[in-house]
């Protein structure tokens, strides 16, 4: 089918910075990203590398002291050039988002059913009864038991998994084309995590929705995504299909993340970690930002910043060693 290849979201050379009294700080330094229809795209990276800021810029919810340049093209509209009112129209209806912590992302004093309903109220002209039945239908569809009773509950009365389902219900009730899931399973225990992943996969399969899945956990990413972007310090350092990323990681950082996954065979041995930490966005280096932590670095890495290099038809890596064997 042709629509499979059509890009839904196309980000080109997106730069995001924050104005501070000490001068501007750059959190995202020119990333390009593409999400096709029906695709689940993963963005992976440690905390502080610009994943969430990128997501918020797609939602047009960056804080007031920030600035963004480049373009975010969403089915023909440039999101960055929308006025605030127009942006509000797309939020919730065309693009929606799921947060990590469902307890703090739901209003503690509003019944969960009403919170789902609110989204419909904003974006459709359905009357109260129609909305109510639609909400119940959605709640049933995502596996919430006894929707009529759950409708009238407050967030603190539900378990973490159920709350995350409510958050998902809020996100999908208006049939958005794109869902951004920002670490949606991080706060949940492993069995619930698996259920939520399965639910997201089902949502993706049964409708035309694309999903951007943000996580620092490559294991989760591998399970659900078809394409993965690896971000580091505001740059995309690797782009590959999920399969290629695991069989043939091109960037030392990706390799580090894969090695850091706990494995059954390595039980009892010390866990691997990447030494050092993500540079603060205030640090400005000339060379590759990963150089101080990289096991493969050499002279050139300290002076020059590598470009994204194509090593396969669908695999790009930002490293001088790309294409060789790590």
């Amino acid at each position, binding site marked *: 089918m042709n629509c499979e290849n059509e890009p839904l979201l196309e980000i080109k050379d997106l730069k995001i910075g924050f104005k501070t009294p000490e001068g501007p700080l750059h959190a995202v330094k020119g990333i390009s990203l593409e999400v096709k229809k029906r695709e689940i795209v993963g963005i992976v990276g440690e905390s502080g590398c610009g994943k969430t800021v990128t997501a918020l810029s797609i939602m047009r*919810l960056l804080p007031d002291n920030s600035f963004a340049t480049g373009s975010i093209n969403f089915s023909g509209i440039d999101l960055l050039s929308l006025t605030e009112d127009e942006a509000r129209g797309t939020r919730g209806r065309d693009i929606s988002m799921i947060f990590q912590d469902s307890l703090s992302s*739901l209003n503690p004093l509003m019944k969960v059913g009403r919170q789902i309903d609110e989204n419909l109220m904003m974006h459709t002209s359905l009357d109260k009864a129609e909305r109510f039945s639609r909400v119940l239908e959605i709640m049933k569809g995502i596996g919430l038991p006894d929707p009529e009773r759950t409708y009238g509950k407050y967030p603190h009365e539900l378990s973490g998994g159920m709350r995350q389902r409510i958050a998902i219900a*809020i996100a999908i009730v208006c049939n958005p084309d794109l869902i951004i899931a920002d670490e949606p399973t991080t706060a949940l225990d492993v069995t619930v995590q698996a259920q939520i992943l399965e639910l997201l996969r089902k949502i993706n399969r049964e409708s035309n929705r694309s999903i951007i899945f943000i996580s620092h956990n490559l294991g989760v990413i591998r399970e659900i995504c078809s394409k993965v972007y690896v971000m580091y310090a505001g740059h995309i350092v690797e782009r590959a299909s999920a399969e290629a990323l695991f069989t043939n990681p091109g960037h030392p950082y990706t390799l580090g993340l894969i090695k850091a996954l706990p494995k059954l065979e390595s039980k009892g041995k010390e866990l691997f970690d990447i030494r050092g930490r993500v540079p603060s966005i205030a640090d400005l280096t000339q060379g590759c930002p990963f150089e101080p932590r990289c096991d493969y670095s050499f002279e050139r890495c300290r002076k020059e910043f590598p470009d994204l290099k194509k090593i396969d038809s669908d695999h790009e890596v930002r490293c001088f060693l790309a294409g060789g064997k790590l």
Partner: protein
Amino acid sequence: MNKRRINLWIGTVLISILMLMMVVSLFYTPFPVTEINRLERFEPPSARHLLGTDNFGRDVLSRIMKGSQTAFFVGLVAVSIGSVFGVLIGAISGYFGGIVDEIIMRIVDAMMAFPSILLALMFVSVFGVGLRNTIIAIGIMSIPSFARITRSGFVQHKELDYVKNAKIKGISNLRIMFRHILPNVLSPIVVAASMGFANAVLAEAALSYLGLGIQPPNPSWGRMLSESQVFITVSPWYAIAPGIFITLLVLGFNFLGDGIRDIRENR
């Protein structure tokens, strides 16, 4: 836990009793409030006149009961004026922030810098004495404190995830402010309202005491206090009665406010 609840209980009981008295006075007082009886001037408390009589031989209890209507009415309306405008101003200021916030808060600061009773005096002397202007003056006086409390709640809550999530749903700012944030920051505002009620009663008493508030022959506790002053050596109970009731009502609302705050903080 019981110890914490005691404030709430005392407050509730005091206010309930006074409120009951106020409701009863709408239908019944032992004697007509303005009936003058030359034969029974300055009588001490007795079975016939529970709180004695005043310089015109009017029954003090009846006038106290009638006066409670004024006290509650003034408190209620003044707190309503103060809270509605204060919450509105504080919400806008806290939610939008930036230059709007800066300007509004400096105006509020300026208002707070005035001694409130002076502000009320000025207002009443410009626009004339009387019940309506007294209430408006007291209401305006209480706007700044409501605005400050509301603002600080909004500043705290606007950064929270549930507000972000509401924005993601595409909800308008107005709805986020009043349907999402306001219910979550309501409890300190309720505490402020309770305290504000007590302050309003005091302010009304003070203005009436100065002769600028409620005009005769309507009874007001503050006015009774000032009228009785002249006769304090002849009939001290006439002065003591309104004093005690002012104290009880103010105390009641203060206890209530403290009680609500205790519950909130120990949740």
